[in-house]
């Protein structure tokens, strides 16, 4: 396969879990909740998804199991931050630490196990095209579903009543409450729905992308996904773009190694993290720009007056 085609193909596949997780976090943040538990939820979904895939041999059941696991964890997070008004940063962090610990605990028996190969979906006709075939049309179905999801979310936020209500809850919970919307329940729903997507991302990593279970295998992708929402100024289509950009950066190290450039592997492995920092700094440089796009009530608890 052509080098460029293979770089594009691996970029799409590496960017998909980032995009899925970041889109989930975007839904969370649009409703006004920051979810620092993403990394832990992803790890839990990864190990549960892997376990289900191993025992049933069905990848879709694995995705569902990952989604449910992460949604339940998001629900627990939601009860604390939405009803008990605990600090969103600290609580999310607690969830990440818990998820990292529990996933390692559960996953011990799965280290070194291998899954059946879930083949990619070769789109009939298109996948036979030279260059474009291998680059774009021989991916796992989830890669295409993620793209559909991103544009679906654009439509959801801009064109549907439910999307508008969700945004209202995030922008001004007081007004949404005054209009009679159940702010807390909507936030919980948004948290769990977004959590489910984070879970699908985790399951994709362990079942399709790697496909292996290794302790701490998400390697900060949950955090990078968090940074992506800022990078994208809370817009779904830009999240997709950002995710592929980061997927490309992750793949660049293999590209370098392949082309024989002499750089230590460890330094290349730093690239995605350094890139996150640089991009975050550049995007945040203008506080007005961020404030203009960020959901106003983000991170702030809301208590309806009774």
């Amino acid at each position, binding site marked *: 396969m052509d080098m460029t085609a293979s770089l594009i193909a691996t970029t799409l596949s590496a960017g998909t879990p980032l995009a899925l997780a970041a889109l989930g976090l975007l839904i969370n943040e649009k409703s006004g909740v920051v979810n620092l538990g993403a990394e832990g939820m992803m790890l839990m979904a990864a190990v549960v998804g892997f376990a289900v895939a191993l025992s049933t041999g069905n990848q879709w059941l694995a995705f569902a199991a990952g989604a449910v696991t992460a949604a339940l964890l998001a629900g627990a997070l939601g009860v604390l931050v939405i009803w*008990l008004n605990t600090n969103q940063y600290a609580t999310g962090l607690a969830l990440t*630490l*818990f998820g990292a610990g*529990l996933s390692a605990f559960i996953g011990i028996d799965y280290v070194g196990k291998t899954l059946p190969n879930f083949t990619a979906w070769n789109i009939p006709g298109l996948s036979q095209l030279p260059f474009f075939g291998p680059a774009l049309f021989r991916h796992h179905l989830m890669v295409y579903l993620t793209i559909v999801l991103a544009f679906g979310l654009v439509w959801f936020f801009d064109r549907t009543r439910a999307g508008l209500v969700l945004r209202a809850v995030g922008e001004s919970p007081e007004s949404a409450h005054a209009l009679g919307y159940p702010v807390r329940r909507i936030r919980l729903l948004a948290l769990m729905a977004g959590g489910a997507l984070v879970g699908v991302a985790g399951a994709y990593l362990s079942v399709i992308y790697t496909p292996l279970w290794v302790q701490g295998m998400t390697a900060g992708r949950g*955090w990078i996904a968090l940074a992506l929402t800022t990078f994208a100024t809370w817009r779904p289509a830009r999240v997709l773009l950002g995710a592929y950009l980061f997927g490309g950066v992750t793949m660049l190290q293999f590209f370098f190694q392949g082309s024989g450039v002499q750089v230590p592997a460890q330094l290349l492995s730093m690239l995605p*993290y*350094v890139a996150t920092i640089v991009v975050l700094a550049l995007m*945040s440089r203008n506080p007005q720009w961020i404030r203009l796009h960020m959901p106003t009530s983000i991170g702030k608890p809301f208590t309806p007056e009774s």
Partner: protein
Amino acid sequence: MLRLEPRAAPSRLMVWLSPLLALGITVAFGIGIFLAMGKNPWQGLSMFFWEPVKSAYNLSELALKATPLILIGLGLAACYRSNVWNIGAEGQYIVGAICGGGVALLAGEQTSHAIVLPILLAGVLGGMAWAALVALLRDWFNANEILVSLMLVYVAQYLLDDLVYGPWKDPEGYNFPQTRLFADPALLGHLVEGTRLNWGFPLALLAVALVWVFLFRSVRGFALQVGGLAPGAARYAGFSARQSLWTVLLLSGGFAGLAGALDAIGPLQQLTPQVSQGYGFAAIIVAFVGRLNPVGVVLSAVLMAMFYIGGELAQSRLGLPNAMTGVFQGLLLFSLLACDTLIAHRVRLAR
């Protein structure tokens, strides 16, 4: 049904009772895990709560483990009090170990015991520099300190990997990723014969006193706490938010770096990729469970050290996975935050 009702004033009793309640929940969950794994829960719990304090030697090991947790937890307590979310102490600890270990390697075999001071200083400066990156990006670029400090953990770990797999690898180490053992004079002497306890622990206790005075008896400490509680009021009073940001980040980075250097020339005696066992993350829990109070940090650091040692013992004696420690740690913080609701609220039976 049960209903939460705001208290007229926050309960001072619950402030200290809530961590105990959270510990109770964690232990109950632990018993569940032991039962699920087919182990005797009493035996399991004794690994965590009795074995580490059973003998003088075990106590010295406990203090040794608690030392980095106290130091890092202190710095993080100051950070969180001023609403600066440094969650990358793990990276600052690793860079501290790299810098301290680097000086120790540079000193070579023919060195005197006086080298310990430059080693620790290098550790402090290394940790400070790593935290200064966070402060700089926050201050100049308004970049979120949570994400930046966390990303720098990965960068620090890869930096360490690069060094111990590459230029710093022990040429006689059978190709293992590790540096050579530091020379004897570069190591911290043992405080009590027959134990591994070193000067780090008394140093950490001294730091507790210093941070207490700084936070509760100095204008700068007061200013940063006001900044954390009420940024508007702090601005009105003329307290500089930028100054607070830099102060707490340099403070916590310095402490984390010191902890890294102390561990490098203390129990570790060389650098390997596994320098840290997640102390930087565990210290976040230490800071919260210790109520962001320097004295509380000591108590919670000892508790967290018990989790670490208990996890190791449960692995070697009961065959339970060491990951138990992480489960307990996360659960403790999660239940603590839930229990903290009771500080400002009471539970009422509602009809």
